[in-house]
């Protein structure tokens, strides 16, 4: 395995400070994702350290803009329309000519400046309400120049917090399976703007089911590289890889418990798939299911007390919930004859899953306590593999709506669905990490 220098930005020295915060007036109730109605201008950051080859200013603006677009709440105004130029203007209430921004239709404005000294980047950025001519929030970040992307993702999350009352989900990483580099399914990670893309596996066999450790530092995945589908863990900072489980047959779809102490995984005994709980070294602690039917795809509740999984015990695959200590399982899906891929929301209230009807696969959510499912995707070919963002308000999923499978992000209502990955090959089985800290 190549040494992976991933998450270099995870060891962020980025010191975060509030810079003169105003109180946000606009909370989520006045608009929702999907309307894309809220026009925001994001000015390239002003270079305060003299002319450098660095393109920090526009890059920061690009990444923030990309994240805000993914959120579904915002329309990013085209930079070529901006009248006030960063290099010849300030980024305080007193030094901004708000008329220059209201005339192009901006209701919100992001402006800031940065200095680069050696490898160090200091960046100060502010969000303004153009109509009220006041600052809503501001942040100062210090760190390595390689941490620019994380600073942008953090500020995008802060902007979303200002407008919705809850932190955005983009200071995180995505793991996924892709055939972008050839016919083999390999595992990749990237940030929300498709930046920092890293190929994690390169074994030219079959690699499936990546999932994150709760500290967003390591990935679990199942690989056929030793011919049997075994479970591996890779530490993305050190690049160190460990074979955790090599039982004959499936060692599939392992998920680490929220407290980081255990794993749930599908194993196979004589052709029959069951869900077990293992310790972090791969030793089986207990068997959760022992039915004649297929039992797969465990997903932990955020408190670690329960596990959702998929079982065919009634003859067709359905979603069930049971105690992580074992015992009886409770069925939570009752419509449709093919319900798979449960993903328990980090807020705890919903389970996302995939359901087949009329030859199409779509993403749904259902309340853990039961009730009517909510359909998030429809009429757009196959939509599968839901994984929740760290905020519990967004999901990433794979969709074949454009032909090849690509990843998309949706809010929990399904009203905003934005393409996350582009380019060649099929992208599938996304796993959205928790927030990086």
């Amino acid at each position, binding site marked *: 395995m190549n040494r992976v220098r991933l998450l270099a930005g995870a060891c962020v020295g980025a010191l975060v400070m509030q810079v003169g915060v105003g109180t946000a007036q606009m909370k989520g109730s006045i608009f929702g994702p999907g309307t894309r109605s809220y026009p925001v201008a994001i000015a390239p950051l002003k270079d305060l350290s003299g002319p450098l080859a660095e393109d920090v200013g526009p890059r920061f603006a690009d990444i923030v803009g990309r994240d805000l677009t993914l959120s579904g709440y915002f329309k990013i105004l085209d930079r070529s329309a901006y009248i006030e130029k960063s290099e010849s203007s300030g980024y305080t209430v007193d030094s901004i000519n708000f008329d220059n921004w209201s005339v192009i239709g901006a209701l919100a404005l992001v402006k800031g400046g940065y200095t680069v000294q050696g490898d160090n980047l200091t960046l100060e950025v502010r969000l303004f309400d153009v109509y009220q001519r006041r600052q809503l929030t501001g942040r100062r970040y210090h760190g390595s120049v390689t941490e620019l992307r994380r600073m942008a993702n953090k500020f995008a999350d802060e902007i979303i917090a200002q407008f919705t009352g809850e932190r955005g989900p983009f200071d995180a990483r995505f793991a996924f399976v892709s055939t972008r580099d050839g*016919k083999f*399914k390999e595992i990749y990670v990237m940030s929300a703007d498709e930046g920092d893309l890293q190929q994690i596996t390169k074994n*030219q*066999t*079959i690699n*499936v*089911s990546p999932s994150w450790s709760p500290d967003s530092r390591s990935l679990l995945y199942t690989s*056929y*590289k*030793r*011919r*049997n*589908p075994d479970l591996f863990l890779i530490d993305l900072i050190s690049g*160190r*890889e*460990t*074979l*955790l*489980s*090599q*039982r*004959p*047959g*499936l060692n*599939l*779809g392992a998920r680490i418990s929220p407290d980081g102490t255990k794993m749930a995984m*599908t194993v*196979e*005994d*004589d*052709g*029959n*798939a069951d869900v077990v709980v*293992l310790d972090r*070294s*791969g*030793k*089986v602690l207990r*068997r959760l299911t022992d039915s004649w039917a*297929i*039992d*797969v*795809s465990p997903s932990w509740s955020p408190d670690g007390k329960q596990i959702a999984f*998929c079982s065919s015990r009634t003859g*067709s*695959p359905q979603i069930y919930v049971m105690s992580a200590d074992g015992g009886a399982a409770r069925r939570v899906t009752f419509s449709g004859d*093919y319900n*798979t*891929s449960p993903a328990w929301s980090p807020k705890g209230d919903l389970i996302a899953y*995939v359901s*087949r009807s009329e030859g199409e*696969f779509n993403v749904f959510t259902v309340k853990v306590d039961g009730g009517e499912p909510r359909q998030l995707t429809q009429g757009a070919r*196959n939509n*599968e*593999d839901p994984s929740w963002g760290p905020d519990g308000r967004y999901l990433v999923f794979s969709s074949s709506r454009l032909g090849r499978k690509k990843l998309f992000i949706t809010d929990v209502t399904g009203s905003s669905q934005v393409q996350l990955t582009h380019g060649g090959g099929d992208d*599938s*089985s996304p796993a959205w990490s928790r927030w990086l800290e």
Partner: protein
Amino acid sequence: MGKRLLGMVVVGLLVAVLGVGCSAKKKGEQAGTEGSNLGEEGLAGTGSLEKYKAGTLGAGEEGPLKDIHFAYDSIDLDETARGILRDNGNWLKDHSGARVEIEGHCDERGTVEYNLALGARRARAAKDYLVTLGIVANRLTTISYGEELPLCHEHTEECWAQNRRDHFVVASE
């Protein structure tokens, strides 16, 4: 496949099959192994994964044992499948030294993990039937490839039907 070539292929796969057999453990036992890199060396290239790597999967080359096929989301052996399994069983009786790896496959529709579990059951269904025909169970190993190694890549029922299969790889004779 010529007998001499088969013999050569067999040596490698025997290593693989015995390797899999040896690592079989009872429930509850699991040793974590540190970064070991065993595996692909020593495997001859007739399994579907090896064919896929070589670019020959679906190229039509057949072993002595025929594939069986399944309905969507089903592990049931229909009369056609049972007839093929009886032929395969007779071949195994005539070649009493042969060991076989049974590969379970699915079509592309549905969930990767569920299909891997479904493929395991399809392989197991064929193994159980062969055992009822008198084939000793330890001559038969199983592996699931789920929807990962389709023979046919079009999104049509005809194609899907080809992909929902058990494939039989003769490992040693």
